[in-house]
């Protein structure tokens, strides 16, 4: 076996080195683009905040995923190309070692080369990132996980590549179906919620594909001579492949052909409040404004034209404000580890070329954008003024966006008990609000700029705790208004405040006036409302000048109006029955019957084939059930995987019989001996 390892290492070293070079260049280029994004952001233009930590940058991860996939599959495939010639394959197989040893030798060599070509550049990247002075973003070792997963997914591709090269299949394309399983496991790295999910999927894919490759070595790439484990693994891999092809094919057909033919309308509505406090319901259909009515149903007319007001005109009249989503319901942000850096940190502020991050542990750290070194952290202080290690609250959906108008260097940040106003120029934290009730906690907060008066902007903070909703003046800590949090934060996690004031944007030096009139909205949780069949209304409170409740209203819930068009139903009906039931969450229904019927037809075809080619009883039952459960992909798998022997007429009973059986399945006759023509020369050979 060692000889095989050495031979394969030597044979394929070139490929690995080329891969090493290409990957290093790719990573270098991706790293450089991250640095340029940083420079862009420091200069004030827009940059992907994702790219600040190269290990988590989407473009780097995507490039790495593609490379590991192509390199892994290519390496596996090329390893088999070395014995592509049937006689070289014979030379290899005729070694006096077991096929399993040959398999092990080849795969050990291949995996070593994969680690060299794909792993070494990644190691170098990590080393660079870890060294201070290179990356202006927080680092923790868990950030390496996405790249590790991508690297491991490449192993699945390696085995899929080997399988593609080894399999003797009549339909050439079906050799590459093993890649589907690898693609699924690689895609799951980007789609899963928890990091262990893709890890399990990759491990399963690698196990199945490796077993299929082992089986292929046992039988020389044929289906029939393989041990059971190899066959099962091959069936699973091929099913994924057939399913994938079907999925893509159907998807493309639907997207390109059927979808344009069907007229789907997509409609949604929402409530808007104008600056005078009136609420309107705005309905959009297929992207166009379809309806604009007030709560009594009267259409809002443009006074100039007499027609329904157009959207642009309407938007000039809208009130301004901000909203808060409480995090008390779920403290942990279930973020996908590979969807950008949001899982690990949020870019909070850029001031004076220093980037401030709120990481997932609740620490606010700063990095100098030019030297890319850490400048320390801003820690909250406790009541006695010393720095405490209390974590800051994480804010879901917080996007740092510099719009160029506001003075961005002062903004709020809160721990569980206190809201601070952070000044990033001076690097100080000033407490603005502290919960008074001992066991109350801060749920959400947002900084809102008020275009107030001649004095310029006023900074305010909207804070919600478990029990209260407050609007604070951020500069002097005074409360502008305070309300009890009714209805509770659990059902109504979103609170919005609308500023009812007349203002003009301070662009032409015109002044704005403030009326100190506010309206507060309590919006219900979408999923709870769905479960309650949309019975939960939106509560709106208008506050009077003394900041007590002057008027309330309850607005009926709005939901997306979506026709379940027939192309959608047809597409899902092609899914195999178990999936379809799960999808539709019901067993009966016309489309479900369609799905069952389709599966039944496939199963009948499958059983017919099994009988015609004389499978054993167990195999017939197994395959029929398999095809029924898996529908069209199941049938395709049966056709791809099995080797179908030719059929000839039996000399005795004249029926077609498979040529791989000794006895005719109809009449039991053996095959006739070769026809003689009188010119045979046979003489028994003597023993020497």
């Amino acid at each position, binding site marked *: 076996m060692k000889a095989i390892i050495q031979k394969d290492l030597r044979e394929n070293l070139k490929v690995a080195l080329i891969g090493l070079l290409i990957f290093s260049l790719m990573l270098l280029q991706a790293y450089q683009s991250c640095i340029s994004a940083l420079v862009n952001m420091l200069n004030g233009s827009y940059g992907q905040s994702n790219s600040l930590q190269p290990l988590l940058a989407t473009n780097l991860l995507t490039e790495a995923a593609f490379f590991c996939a192509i390199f892994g599959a290519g390496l596996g495939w090329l390893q088999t190309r070395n014995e592509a010639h049937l006689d070289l394959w*014979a030379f290899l*197989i005729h*070694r*006096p070692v077991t096929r399993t040893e040959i398999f092990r030798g080849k795969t050990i060599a291949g995996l070593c080369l994969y680690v060299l070509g794909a792993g070494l550049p990644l190691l170098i990247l990590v080393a660079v990132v870890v060294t201070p002075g290179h990356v202006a973003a927080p680092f923790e070792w868990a950030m390496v996980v996405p790249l590790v997963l991508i690297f491991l997914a490449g192993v699945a591709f390696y085995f899929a590549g080997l399988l593609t090269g080894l399999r003797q299949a009549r339909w050439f394309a079906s050799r590459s179906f093993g890649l589907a399983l690898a693609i699924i496991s690689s895609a799951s790295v980007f789609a899963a919620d928890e990091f262990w999910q893709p890890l399990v999927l990759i491990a399963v894919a690698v196990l199945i594909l490796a077993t299929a490759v082992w089986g292929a070595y046992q039988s020389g790439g044929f289906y029939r001579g393989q041990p059971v484990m190899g066959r099962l693994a091959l069936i699973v891999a091929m099913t994924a492949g057939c399913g994938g092809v079907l999925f893509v094919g159907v998807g493309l057909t639907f997207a390109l052909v059927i979808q344009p033919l069907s007229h789907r309308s997509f409609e949604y509505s929402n409530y808007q409040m104008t600056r005078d406090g009136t609420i309107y319901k705005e309905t959009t259909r297929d992207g166009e404004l379809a309806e604009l009515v007030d709560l009594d149903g009267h259409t809002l007319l443009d006074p100039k034209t007499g027609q329904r007001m157009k959207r642009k005109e309407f938007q000039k009249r809208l009130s301004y404000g901000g909203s808060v989503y409480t995090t008390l319901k779920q403290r942990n942000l279930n973020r996908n580890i590979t969807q950008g850096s949001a899982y690990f940190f949020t870019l909070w502020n850029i001031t004076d070329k220093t980037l401030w991050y709120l990481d997932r542990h609740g620490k606010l750290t700063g990095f100098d954008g030019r030297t890319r070194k850490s400048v320390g952290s801003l820690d909250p202080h406790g009541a006695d003024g010393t720095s405490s290690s209390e974590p800051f609250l994480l804010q879901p959906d917080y996007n740092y966006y510099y719009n160029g108008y506001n003075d961005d260097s002062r903004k709020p940040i809160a721990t569980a008990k206190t809201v601070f106003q952070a000044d990033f120029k001076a690097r100080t934290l000033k407490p603005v609000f502290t919960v008074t009730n001992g066991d109350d906690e801060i749920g959400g907060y947002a900084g809102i700029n008020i275009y107030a008066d001649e004095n310029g902007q006023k900074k305010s903070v909207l804070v919600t705790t478990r029990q209260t909703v407050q609007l604070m003046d951020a500069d002097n800590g005074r409360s502008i208004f305070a309300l009890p949090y009714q209805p509770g934060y659990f059902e109504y996690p979103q609170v919005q405040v609308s500023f009812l004031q007349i203002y003009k944007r301070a662009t032409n030096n015109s002044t704005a006036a403030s009326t100190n009139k506010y309206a507060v909205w309590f919006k219900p949780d979408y999923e709870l409302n769905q479960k309650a069949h949309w019975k939960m209304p939106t509560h709106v409170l208008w506050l009077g000048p003394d900041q007590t409740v002057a008027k309330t209203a309850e607005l009926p819930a709005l939901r997306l109006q979506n026709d379940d068009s027939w192309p959608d139903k047809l597409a899902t009906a092609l899914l195999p029955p178990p999936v379809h039931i799960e999808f539709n969450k019901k067993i009966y229904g016309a489309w479900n019957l369609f799905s069952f019927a389709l599966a039944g037809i496939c199963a009948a075809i499958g059983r017919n084939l099994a009988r015609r080619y004389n499978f054993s009883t167990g195999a017939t039952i197994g395959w029929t059930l398999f095809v029924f459960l898996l529908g069209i992909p199941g049938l395709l798998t049966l056709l791809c995987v099995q080797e179908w022997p030719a059929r000839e007429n039996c000399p005795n009973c004249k029926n077609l019989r498979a*040529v*791989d059986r000794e006895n005719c399945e109809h009449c039991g006759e053996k095959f006739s001996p070769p026809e003689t023509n009188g010119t*045979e*020369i046979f*003489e028994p*050979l003597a023993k020497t």
Partner: protein
Amino acid sequence: MNDESVIQTRGLTKYFGGKRAVYELNLDVPRGCVFAFLGRNGSGKTTTIRMLMGLMPPTRGTGKILGHDIRVLTPEIRARIGYLTEEHQLYGWMNVKESGEFQSKFFPRWNDKIFRGVVGHFGLKPTAKVKDLSRGERAGLCLALTLAPEPEMLMLDDPGLGLDPVARRALVESMIFLTRKSDRTIFFSSHHLSDVERVADYIAVFDRSILRACCPLEKFQESVQQMRLRFPGAPPTLPKIPGLLQAIRTENELRVTCVHYNGEAEKILRTLSPLEMESVPLGLEDAFISYLGERGEKTFILSEMEAQP
């Protein structure tokens, strides 16, 4: 079905799709002989050898090599068989010495003297890369790699293919050298009938997927006979003769080649009343060509072409 057969097949059959490549092969190869496997290109020889070596699964039928089922050849059995493939394929990037080292790691019974001897006999330099070797040199290297582990049995698939006469002579000499040990069996396929005549004890002839002859070499040559009949004018039509292979008709002659020429055939020929009837002795090559050529009556092809304006 004796225990001394090193190769034994019963009903061995292979189909490629709907096409028959090997049909119902029953073969017994005794130990210690030199067995030549003959047939036209595409008649099923290489397929049979690949099945016997466990590289290709048979469609049906059984086969045993050295007593073991060909579908599950264990490493121990493989160590006892030396297999030379048709195209003399090796890893091109290795050189001669490395090829030897690679091979020797697998076989504990590696005799380096034999390896160096054969390599030297073919004039190969140890540092020459395989991809730079000529066909004959590659064949020599393959032969060295096959012989050095001193296998009990040699399976050679068209070892002389593409070799120049000098290399072929070296090959035949190596085969004869091997017969020094009487328990060694050599099974080979070939188109070079002169080499087969020199070296084979038994031959088997494959005709379009069917085994048509399996006998000692002399028996084959003896069994195919040609009779020349001279007529005063145009020869008459030939009636059906048992064992007829070919009949060639010229201006006033009829040459009839047939198998197992006996009294019955002679009687039929005499009924044609030829002026003369004599038997023409055939060499192995001519016998072989008649045996596997087109059956039936034909005129010499060129005279036909001349007859046309």
